[in-house]
């Protein structure tokens, strides 16, 4: 273990592992049913404040639902949205980037123009249109973000492939008569994998924020499913009297995004220090 390996970000790594475990074991860890309403116990403050009880450690919301349990279940939505969306975008983007980099001419030009046009389109606008025309659903959130996010992968991978294509081993492979598919799959793809891994880790946090913003605007995961963004929105009207309803889901978003971003930064320093974050 030398160099940056020694500086493994223990804190962020632990936070990520913790949130993943919470998502997997949500039903075991939750003190209460996240959907059950206790109408007599509406807006119960957190346990350490006057009027709070350890029955609802972080208090309850407008309908008397246990906030901690809802945050715990909300972990599933956020992590799933982050991982699935980034996986889909990375696959599509890497594919297009590899193809465009291999066929530099017409095909590549058209593909990269499309990439640039996509890159400059505001994600939330498209996501809002999709959510309202096709209904607020988990799948639509993934589609809406992925339809734009792939372009970031395509851009970076394209740049990598263009410089790889100049290298001797690719010229050799072509001289030996390798097919385009073989060159892309066996020679080009493995050499861009480290960049792909770094980008994936850097983007999960961003996607979690975008999903939360969409849920906040009512275009993400529909209620009553607990999602952090919509929980912040639900508490917004009552911030003055019951600040905890909006506050704690926001802290959860901040923590998990911070952990993913710091981990991604470290991974970049180790694997691909020249990579710039978009």
């Amino acid at each position, binding site marked *: 273990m030398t160099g940056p390996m020694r500086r493994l970000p223990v804190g962020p790594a632990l936070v990520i592992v913790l949130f993943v475990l919470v998502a997997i074991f949500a039903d075991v860890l939750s003190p209460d049913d996240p959907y059950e309403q206790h109408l007599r116990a509406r807006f119960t403050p957190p346990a350490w404040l006057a009027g709070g009880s350890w029955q609802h450690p972080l208090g309850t919301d407008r309908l008397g639902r246990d906030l901690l349990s809802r945050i715990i279940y909300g972990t599933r939505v956020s992590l799933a949205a982050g991982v699935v969306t980034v996986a889909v975008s990375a696959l599509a983007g890497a594919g297009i980037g590899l193809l465009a980099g291999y066929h530099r001419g017409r095909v590549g030009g058209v593909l990269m123009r499309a990439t640039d046009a996509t890159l400059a*389109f505001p994600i*939330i606008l498209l996501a*809002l*249109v999709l959510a*309202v025309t*096709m209904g607020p659903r988990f799948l639509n959130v993934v589609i809406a973000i992925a339809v734009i996010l792939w372009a970031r992968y395509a851009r970076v991978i394209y740049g990598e492939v263009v410089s790889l294509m100049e290298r001797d081993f690719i010229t050799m492979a072509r001289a030996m008569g390798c097919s385009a598919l073989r060159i892309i799959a066996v020679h080009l793809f493995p050499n861009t994998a480290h960049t792909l891994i770094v980008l994936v880790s850097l983007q999960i946090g961003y996607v979690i*924020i975008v999903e939360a913003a969409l849920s906040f605007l009512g275009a993400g995961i529909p209620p009553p499913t607990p999602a952090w963004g919509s929980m*912040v929105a639900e508490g917004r009207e009552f911030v003055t009297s019951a600040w905890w309803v909006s506050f704690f889901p926001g802290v959860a*978003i901040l923590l998990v995004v911070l952990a993913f971003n710091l981990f991604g930064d470290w991974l970049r320093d180790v694997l691909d220090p020249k990579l710039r974050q978009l």
Partner: protein
Amino acid sequence: MRRFVLTRIVQSVVTLLVLSLMVFLLARATGDPLSLVLPLGATQEDYENARHYLGLDLPLSVQYVKFIANAVRGDFGISLRVRRPVVDLLWERFPNSLALAAVSMALSLALAFPLGVLAAVHRDRALDRAAKIVATLGQALPTFWLGIVLIEVVAGRLQWLPAGGTGDLSHYVMPAFTLAWFVLAGIMRLLRSSLLEVLDSDFVRTARAKGVPEAGVVWRHALRNALIPVVTFAGVYFAILVTTAIVVETVFAWPGMGRLAYEAITARDFPVIQAVVLVTALVVVVANFTVDLLYVYLDPRIRYG
């Protein structure tokens, strides 16, 4: 150069047309807008009259061509929700958005530049660490949540600033700060890493060797070259700014285009949705075009066309 400009203009128009077709089809793909406009007791006949009056009974292709022809002349139809010409709504809202975006962008550039440069120059020292914390937090704080917390603490408990809406300069402070923090984080990090790379290059070593003062090396020789990647991604940052503005305008009740989009989308107000998306896209396309021209100016090695 002229060929380059022409090609980019044609490309921009094609991008806008494809986008307009997408939005047009999506907006009509599902649901009947009339079910939101007409009262519950409306008869079949009422529906047909309204459909005919709004031109929704024509074939889709005819509707699209009419839509484009009108849009080019600045006529985006009538809002289904407030029954007013969409152009009027745009003219009311656009200046507000532009003002907020301009103030935020100025604020983020004014902070990102010195912070990014100083962080690179004082690498791994206290200032660099502080700048890194600012940037890392900026990219991890959910904008909408930060906005709510600011409104509750600064406007609610402390009563220092107004909670929302437009007005004098004090109304700009919180929304502009919220919007700027997220954008400045990305610009600052990119500037820092790109400046570090440039400071390590041969021409900088030469400049130092021939006795150029360190400040001159950094600000005159290195910065201009370090700016190239920042300008490359300027279009992306602009898109991020527009995206974040929708959330910020909604939270701070800022009467801009972002909030108009949110209101129109929740009310299925098709003409307004189309207009907002197209105008936003137009602004983004124009911004990207300007960036491309700036790019050629900054980096004479690049010759297009």
